[in-house]
């Protein structure tokens, strides 16, 4: 089996350079590549375009890269849970492209499946449709949307093996598998790195062929954005 293990986050992201387009997995703060983000902040790489469903909060997730003004453009479905984001957007320092969440996910999948474009009804008749090709199938209008083209995809999995196979845990799966498929180079950080052979082939969510580098992550904070509970009766 081909070994994809690298020593850690710094090593994994070492060739990410100014102006690159990155995909970052996660939904809100759930399932985000915490170690890679820390390493990107440390490396200080700039003018990044980030494709990610959300932009983190002020002091966590992609918010950390906004604080250091490393992000030129966000391509997301829902943003603005952080004051710094809003400030940069209003001041024109930051560009934002808002995309329906399903379109965002499917444009990732399209890249991973070698499909140059997909059709979706999301956004027909709205400003999202401006300048896009509309096509009618069976009486319903669809927009043609293109596959993403990302230099790197940074994803976070629960378990991974040395061959790059990934297993996600619960709803931290979200965008991670579709982005893992879509990066020209895919970097996976995992909570538990195991030897090839320890994962059941039937349980693998992302086959190792899609993963170029994998490392054992550390110090996961896994912050909760909306802690909601009920009381025991």
């Amino acid at each position, binding site marked *: 089996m081909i070994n994809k293990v690298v020593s850690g986050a710094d090593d994994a992201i070492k060739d990410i350079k100014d102006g690159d387009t990155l995909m970052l997995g996660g*939904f*809100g*703060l*759930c*399932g985000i590549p915490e170690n890679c983000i820390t390493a990107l902040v440390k490396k200080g790489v700039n003018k990044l375009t980030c494709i990610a*469903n959300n932009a983190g909060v002020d002091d966590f997730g992609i918010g950390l890269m906004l604080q250091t003004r490393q992000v030129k453009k966000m391509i*997301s*479905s*829902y*943003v*603005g*849970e952080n004051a710094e984001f*809003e400030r940069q*957007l*209003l001041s024109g320092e930051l560009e934002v492209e*808002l995309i*329906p*969440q*399903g*379109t*965002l*996910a*499917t444009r*990732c*999948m399209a890249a991973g499946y070698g499909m140059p474009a997909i059709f*979706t*009804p*999301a*956004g*027909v*008749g*709205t*400003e*999202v449709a401006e300048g896009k090709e509309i096509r009618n199938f069976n009486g319903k209008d669809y927009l043609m949307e293109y596959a993403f083209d990302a230099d790197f995809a940074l994803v976070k999995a*629960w378990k991974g093996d040395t061959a790059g196979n990934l297993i*996600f*845990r*619960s*709803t*931290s*799966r*979200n*965008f*991670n*598998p*579709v982005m893992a498929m879509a990066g020209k180079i895919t970097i996976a950080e995992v909570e538990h790195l195991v030897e090839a052979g320890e994962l059941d082939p039937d349980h693998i*969510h992302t086959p190792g062929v899609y993963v170029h580098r994998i490392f054992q992550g550390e110090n996961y904070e*896994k*912050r*909760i*954005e*909306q*802690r*909601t*509970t*009920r*009381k*025991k009766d």
Partner: protein
Amino acid sequence: MLDKNGIAKRIAKEIKDGYYVNLGIGIPTLVANYIPEGINVVLQSENGLLGMGPFPFEGEEDPDLINAGKQTITTLAGSSIFDSAMSFGMIRAQKIDLTILGAMEVSENGDIANWKIPGKMVKGMGGAMDLVASAKNIIVAMQHINKAGESKLLPNCTLPLTGVKCIKKVVTELAVLDILPEGGFRLLERAPGVSVDFIKQSTLGKLYADDNVPEMILD
């Protein structure tokens, strides 16, 4: 006049046995509290879960298990997890029987605006555009009139649209209304104590109302 819980309670009566339901953020989330006993319903959360359970007990929150509103939740026996592409795949393929979401404005031809107010910080449409464009059965939970007393049920939406000709039913603090295929709101039920005349005054879009519109039965 209904409060938010009243709106949620009335909408819950629209849920049928065997439905897969997607609940949006806000009032729609409250609907889960009023699903009638004996009705088997599966809640979908578009971040990748079928079978959303209640909030966890204190101390049992799992950061890896959240809903589309980023709230900590639980799973149920029979839940399944999937990625975002499959989640919106099943929405697009109309496998979800009912979608309930909020709105800022709805027009008499079924357009909806609920994501953007020009001049204000725009947070994004999230999954709303996918949901309204794909779902075969959408109920909007919304306020009939804004704080200035202006109608939010309009001939045409004034705000940027989320979707066109997609809303079939609206439940507000004042009424239950269908949107007719040929256009126009049809008043089906009045909230307790609300007159047909008041609903007429409060609806700027074309409204069809009989003289005898029944009052909602909530329990």
